[in-house]
């Protein structure tokens, strides 16, 4: 590679870093994304000068097909389906790395003029094997995550006894495949079959590892999974960079790997669970199994109506809205914004409290509310707003459950014990809009529903919020 091409790759890596750096604040984030895409353009153009292009039609056909599909997906997908789209894109990233690793094996086996068989070393074989392994795990794992998010697969953990053991064995098989590829490297020209079959073995076992890794993980743990697969897709790209000896790929892949891993750890922290605990799965379900309105003995529920909520909220000084996954399901983000607008026009201070794992991916609620034009200055992270609940008149919980369950503070034996929660019960009145009393994803009954200062509004989130807005208009 000539120095000018190397420098172009360096430039694109610098643009990626600067672009990600601008992602730190909402006003600069958009230009950051533009910088990063400029970096990508630079890298691709530089690549066209690495060797002579032999087949322009193939290149153009691939780029045009992929570009068209990508554009349609990016423009058409509704904001409520962003978790699914991100999962799919992660999967494509992994698939691309697996394809490139396979193509590299093919170059050597078919004696392409691009490569010199004498440079094929055990080290290179290991790097190709790792890229194939990580790429395939990312690909099939993301497909399962997509299926769960889209509702094609059950949101409940799909598991069987010993699933972790089987996954471990399969992963071991993949590693054995990599070792075989390395051992077969010196005999590549005389005995290419070892390399070929080891490669196929790695791909097959990695595909199964990806499936079994995500099957046992329940729907509400998806923020962790999506972030982790994001990290894998970056590491797969970095591994491809090692194959091609390409700085741009190593730097940018590693940046993405770091980003995904950091988000993964933040999500785990927000649930007070270790990554191992999430990944071994079998935790909770969609919470839809228990019967709808059973009130436990000795406890009572106070119901309220949209009209009462309207009066309560209109004459409040401070209202904090706590959105959860239920808001996304009901697509109630616009209705909520309209209610907030009405209340603000009556002089009520309205803010939003966002729990880190509310929804199905990191930042899910923020994107939905941004779509509904809620200014990000009104969105507060858990640590910023938790102390404010005690001076709040109404905490309005819409489709959130486990993240406001006081059991996380109290019962030490419960699965959610120690999970940081939003302290909505400190507010003077808590109104929970929810279809039923069913427990959240953790399966732990929510003691918030039976507290003296809690009012339940049993309804679909969007309808209830719209009716409340109408009632506020009349006041």
């Amino acid at each position: 590679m000539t120095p000018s091409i190397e420098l172009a790759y360096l430039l694109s890596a610098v643009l990626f870093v600067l672009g990600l750096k601008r992602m730190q604040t909402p006003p600069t984030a958009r230009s950051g994304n533009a910088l990063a895409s400029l970096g990508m353009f630079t890298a691709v153009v530089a690549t066209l000068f690495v060797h002579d292009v032999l087949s322009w039609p193939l290149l153009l056909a691939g780029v045009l097909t992929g570009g068209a599909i990508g554009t349609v997906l990016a423009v058409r997908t509704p904001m409520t389906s962003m978790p699914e789209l991100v999962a799919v894109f992660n999967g494509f990233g992994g698939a691309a790395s697996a394809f490139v690793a396979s193509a590299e094996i093919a170059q050597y086996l078919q004696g392409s003029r691009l490569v010199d068989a004498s440079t094929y070393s055990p080290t290179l074989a290991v790097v190709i094997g790792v890229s194939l392994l990580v790429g395939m795990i990312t690909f099939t794992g993301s497909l399962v995550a997509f299926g769960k998010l889209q509702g094609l697969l059950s949101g409940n953990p799909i598991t069987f006894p010993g699933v972790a053991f089987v996954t471990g064995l399969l992963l071991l098989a993949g590693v054995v495949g990599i070792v075989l590829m390395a051992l077969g490297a010196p005999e590549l020209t005389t005995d290419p079959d070892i390399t070929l079959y080891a490669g196929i073995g790695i791909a097959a076992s990695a595909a199964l590892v990806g499936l079994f890794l995500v099957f046992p993980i329940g729907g509400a743990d998806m923020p962790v999974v999506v972030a982790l697969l994001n990290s894998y897709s970056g590491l797969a790209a970095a591994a491809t960079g090692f194959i091609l000896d390409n700085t741009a790929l190593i730097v940018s892949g590693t940046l993405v790997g770091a980003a995904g891993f950091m988000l993964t750890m933040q999500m785990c922290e927000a649930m007070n669970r270790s990554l191992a605990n999430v990944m071994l799965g079998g935790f909770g379900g969609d919470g839809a199994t228990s019967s709808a309105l059973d009130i436990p003995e000795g406890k009572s529920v106070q119901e309220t109506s949209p009209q009462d909520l309207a009066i309560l909220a209109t004459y409040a000084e401070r209202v904090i809205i706590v959105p959860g996954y239920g808001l996304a399901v009901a697509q109630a983000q616009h209705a909520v914004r309209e209610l907030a607008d009405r209340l603000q026009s009556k002089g009520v201070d309205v803010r939003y409290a966002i729990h880190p794992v509310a929804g199905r991916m990191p930042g899910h609620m923020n994107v939905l509310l941004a779509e509904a034009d809620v200014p990000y200055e009104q969105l507060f992270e858990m640590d910023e707003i938790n102390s404010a609940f005690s001076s709040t008149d109404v905490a309005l919980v819409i489709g959130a459950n486990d993240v406001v369950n006081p059991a996380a503070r109290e019962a030490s034996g419960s699965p959610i014990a120690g999970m940081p929660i939003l302290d909505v019960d400190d507010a003077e009145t808590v109104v929970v809009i929810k279809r039923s009393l069913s427990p959240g994803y953790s399966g732990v009954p929510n003691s918030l529903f039976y507290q003296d200062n809690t009012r339940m509004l049993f309804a679909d989130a969007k309808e209830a919020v719209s009716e409340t807005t109408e009632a506020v208009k009349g006041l």
Partner: protein
Amino acid sequence: MIENVIIFVLAALLGTEVLTKVPQTLHTPLMSGANAISGITLVGAVIAAGMSDAWWAQALGFGALVVATINVVGGFLVTDRMLRMFGRKRSASASDSSSS
């Protein structure tokens, strides 16, 4: 190889340093933007599909080219779409919201 390992470690440190400060509000665009960047595998796809004379490599490279381009084009576009929402000033009218 050892230079590449050095680059890898430094990039990981740099990435962690730059990214821990991203606020929760931007976590989704960060993920989709980072994902578009991981489509840098496109570079490998271009080499395999366009510059090789081994037809298996071309075929596999073509597959890589399609999925990597989806990843890059789709990823950057959808991130821009999200960030446009975060940046815009809210309109005075609330009439576009849905009511049922």
